């Protein structure tokens, strides 16, 4: 095979792969702007006749055909829960990651392993006892209940990522800062924190995405508009007798947009975060 042929083949395959990655998402986005009537038509209508914002108006309770599903509250719940649990997980995880990166103590590697193993417990398996315990202490169907759980499941990964980044910061720097007159606390915030910032940022993004996208636990621990998150809310559509495809697509768009923006903003850090933590032992 000639070189030019080979190059063309690679391009063709690449294009196909990119199509498979992009097409499903794009199709969902497109459908969010179509009417259910057009989606259900047989034989299929390929070129949309009239694009509309009605689906978005409906799920936010605007316009004529008001939907029974309070997506606005779900969105707010998701935001409050994700942001709060992310902030908590980053603070707790950073503190732990620093301890692992900078201090020596017996039982360290064992502690690290146990921390990571706690992350492997399947959400659904964890939801069983949490469902009962949270019911007993009144945390079921509250934002606080979900926040606490999300914080805990995000801590191990945050510890892992920040530990890798703190280890990249030479120990000398903190010592130099302390000789320059800093307290250990000042040395951390003025020297080590700024240098590990990109790692901490990527840990935060991962925590946010995990919380924002989580379903298995939330589906059991939330019941009402007080605490239901967007992924759980998406299932409201299927609970009805007929599936409102266009509405679901519109809601899917609402779920994916914040995650998308966030990821593109920090994609560079994300990759560095994942590899640093793991390879550079």
């Amino acid at each position: 095979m000639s070189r030019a042929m080979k190059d063309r083949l690679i391009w063709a395959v690449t294009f196909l792969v990119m199509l498979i990655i992009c097409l499903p998402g794009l199709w969902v986005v497109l459908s969010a702007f179509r009417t259910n009537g057009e989606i259900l038509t047989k034989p299929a209508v390929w070129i949309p006749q009239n694009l509309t914002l009605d689906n978005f108006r409906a799920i936010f309770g605007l316009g004529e055909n008001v939907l029974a599903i309070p997506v606005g509250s779900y969105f707010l719940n998701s935001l409050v829960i994700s942001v709060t649990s992310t902030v908590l997980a980053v603070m707790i995880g950073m503190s732990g990651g620093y301890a692992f990166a900078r201090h020596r103590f017996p039982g360290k590697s064992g502690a690290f392993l146990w921390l990571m193993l706690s992350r492997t417990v399947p959400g659904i398996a964890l939801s069983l006892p949490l469902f009962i315990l949270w019911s007993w202490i009144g945390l079921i169907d509250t934002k606080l209940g979900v926040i606490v759980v999300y914080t805990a499941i995000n801590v191990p990964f945050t510890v892992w990522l920040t530990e890798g980044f703190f280890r990249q910061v030479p120990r000398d720097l903190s010592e130099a800062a302390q000789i320059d007159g800093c307290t250990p606390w000042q040395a951390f915030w003025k020297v080590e924190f700024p240098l590990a910032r990109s790692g901490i940022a990527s840990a935060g993004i991962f925590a946010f995405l995990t919380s924002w996208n989580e379903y298995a636990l939330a589906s059991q621990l939330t019941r009402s508009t007080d605490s239901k998150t967007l992924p759980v809310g998406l299932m409201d559509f299927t609970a009805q007798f007929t599936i409102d495809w266009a509405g679901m697509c519109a809601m899917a768009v609402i779920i994916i947009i914040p995650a998308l923006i966030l990821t593109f903003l920090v994609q560079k850090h994300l990759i560095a975060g994942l590899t640093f933590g793991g390879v550079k032992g």
Partner: protein
Amino acid sequence: MTRLRRYARDHAVPLALLSPAVLVILLVVLLPLLFSFYTSFSNYRLIRPDSLWDWVGFRNYLRVLGDGDFWSAFGRTVLFLTVALNLEMLLGLGLALMVNRITWGQRTMRTIMMFPMMFSPILVGFQFKYLFNDTIGLVNNALQSLGLASEPIPFLVDRWLAFAAIAFAEIWMSTSIFAILILAGLFAMPKDPIEAARVDGCSNWQVFRHITLPFLMPFIYIAMTIRSLDVARAYDIVDVMTGGGPAGRTELLWTLIARTAYDDARMGRANAMAYFSILLSIFFTWFFFRKLMAARRHLGAF
């Protein structure tokens, strides 16, 4: 006692720094798991709270072990994970090697590759439920419009087609983790050993087999470790795509636990099953973590 106090005094700072992390995990993971471990030895049903004290010993475990539905779900789960993880790894490797060869538009390609990573599993499930729907799905519509199929294909109803559809969704979602990490490995790879191998007379394939691949192994194992941390995300996909049905044909271990616990309200038995799922997850993570550590030591030679 004094030894413990001495340990606490000598390592006060790291212990203080670690304590919030330990505390929150103790409270939200370990304590509930101890409770569920107890529950798995009781006849606890959600609708009869006092049954929590109804100690039944190993009965739940024996029931689960003697349950054909459990074993078929368990087998299907292991099969599903094996197929999905292997294909994700191979496709991710192929994708990374491909993108690595492309010079024009590489950055755009990398960005697009990250796309599925930020999708909620529940969204991935919904997306493919929509695409594979037998009446209005894009796939069936396309096949029919192109005249490749006269009848709609029941992607989500047939036993093996549904399994394949779910696996496709899972692979679509997770291949990018492998591709991105392996690509990062390819970027970090030193050029000297490759050139040395070429001088020594290696063919392209031999260079890949003996130089590139060993260097990439740690990156592959990181991806595997990260992936195996939440293999149970597949629950979300299955729940929205088929709900484990029809008639339990796509039931995975996790959907079976959910059904037993919440629909049948048999908490005790569901918890017994949950322990099998936890062990499965720990096994996968531990396995790849060990491989990662070994590969990392090996990489030190580079």
